[in-house]
């Protein structure tokens, strides 16, 4: 870009025209379709948009709360599981084995099923002292499933740090735990931030599944509005709110990935 000569400008011009034509043709095809007027009324009703927006935005606050709590817990639990899976002591084999089963099972169950199982199943048991709040079990389901994914991300990151780093840390007197804490983990975590953010993007979307338990988050609120008016515009409102959060996060992730790649390509070794 900085070295932009005439060739670059010309290329940019072609890209702009091509983009305009491409989306122009699609827009034209959609707008001229026989059912467009109907669809426009059903999904893109300006009046509906304005009246339902505040309530859905309000419910989106609950969505944000859900995934912020879930993400914090996922980080802690994911790291813990990764560390357990990486222990080598024979005595700890049972815990290690449980951690392996855990990651396999939790990654294998469809998210929605897990939400149902915990959200409807556990309170249904009627055990004294066990919380019955759907938001509690909804968040628990998210945390259990995503910790399994994030544990694998952490494990890959830790394993990507060359063993000579631990040797060097042990050689200057650090204990195994200190070597992990001050030498291996800081490097590993830096390396896995992009894939971690990726998982968080899908966690943010999956937080909508908690709505099926009756928790009024953005999607559930949109559903309520829709069933009151028989107009689908509220869904578009919810979709835009999700996009407003996930797109910046997606861009940030891509930027971090490309920065990491540049760094590894440009640095010595």
């Amino acid at each position, binding site marked *: 870009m900085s070295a932009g000569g005439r060739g670059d400008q010309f290329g940019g011009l072609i890209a702009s025209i091509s983009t305009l034509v491409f989306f122009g043709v699609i827009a034209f095809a959609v707008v001229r379709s026989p059912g467009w007027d109907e669809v426009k009324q059903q999904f893109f009703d300006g009046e509906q948009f304005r009246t339902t927006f505040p309530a859905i935005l309000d419910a989106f606050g609950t969505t944000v709360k859900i995934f912020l709590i879930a993400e914090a817990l996922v980080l802690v639990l994911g790291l813990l599981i990764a560390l357990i899976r990486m222990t080598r002591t024979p005595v700890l084999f049972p815990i290690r084995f449980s951690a392996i089963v855990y990651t396999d099972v939790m990654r294998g169950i469809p998210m929605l099923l897990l939400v149902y199982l915990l959200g409807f199943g556990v309170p249904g048991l009627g055990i004294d002292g066990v919380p019955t709040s759907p938001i509690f079990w909804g968040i628990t389901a998210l945390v259990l499933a995503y910790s399994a994914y994030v544990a694998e991300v952490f494990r890959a990151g830790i394993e990507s740090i060359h063993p*000579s*780093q631990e*040797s*060097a*840390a*042990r*050689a*200057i*007197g*650090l*204990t195994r735990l*200190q070597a992990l804490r*001050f*030498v291996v983990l*800081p*490097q590993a975590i*830096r390396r896995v931030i992009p894939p971690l953010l990726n998982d968080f993007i899908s966690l943010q979307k999956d937080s909508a599944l908690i709505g099926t338990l009756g928790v009024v988050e953005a999607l559930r609120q949109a559903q309520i509005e829709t069933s009151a008016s028989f107009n689908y515009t509220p869904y578009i409102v919810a979709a835009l709110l999700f996009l407003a959060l996930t797109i910046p996060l997606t861009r940030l992730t891509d930027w971090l990935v490309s920065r990491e790649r540049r760094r590894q390509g440009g*640095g*010595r*070794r």
Partner: protein
Amino acid sequence: MSASSPLVTVHQVHKAFGDNQVLAGLSLNLAQHEVVCLIGPSGSGKSTLLRCIDMLEPINQGRITVDGVDITSPGCDENAVRRGIGMVFQGYNLFPHLSVVGNITLAPVRVRGDNRAQARERALELLARFDLADKADAFPDQLSGGQQQRVAIIRALAMDPKLLLLDEITSALDPELVGEVLNLLRDLANDGMTMLVATHEMSFAREVATRVCFLDGGVIVEEGHPTRVLDTPTAPRTRQFLDRVINPMGTSQQR
């Protein structure tokens, strides 16, 4: 510790990786202020011996003591042993996420519990002494190989070790950078630092070492004063090895 007893004793040590017998009953004593160079073909057990003394590898058989402590007995506190020993590696192994000072002060602060400001001051002193004062806040990937290796040595010195183990520390360096690292080692030797050095630098061994040991097949084949071992080796295997090192392409007359 009496002054006469050795700082390190290695007695009949065996170490195998799977079927590969790397140390085959090796014995070696190291007195205080000695600089012993280990030479020999790759795979002869030089690095493994150093790693065993630093307890980075468990041994299969035999006995090693460091400063009077039997480090091969089961109850031995490996962290305490390593605190007294500095080890430097072929690949520098600096911590890339920490600055030069961060690398040097990590162990003094976290292991010995030094005050952070004092540790930094001490690190700066060491850096200044070895002409690296201007690199204090640089990160490892901004340094040349020779500078990185010198920082790695300083990192080991920051814990005030009684013994330095140096594992082919110039082998990964560009030839023109080897000198600065070897000069630093010579300074340390002059200060009386006890060192065990696995090396291919015969000129360094000749000039700085108090003793040279030739290793082959996991045992010491020949040892003695540097000029004696390097100029008039008695064992055929030592002669063969030195011939190949001095004349790698084998063009001159044999012996």
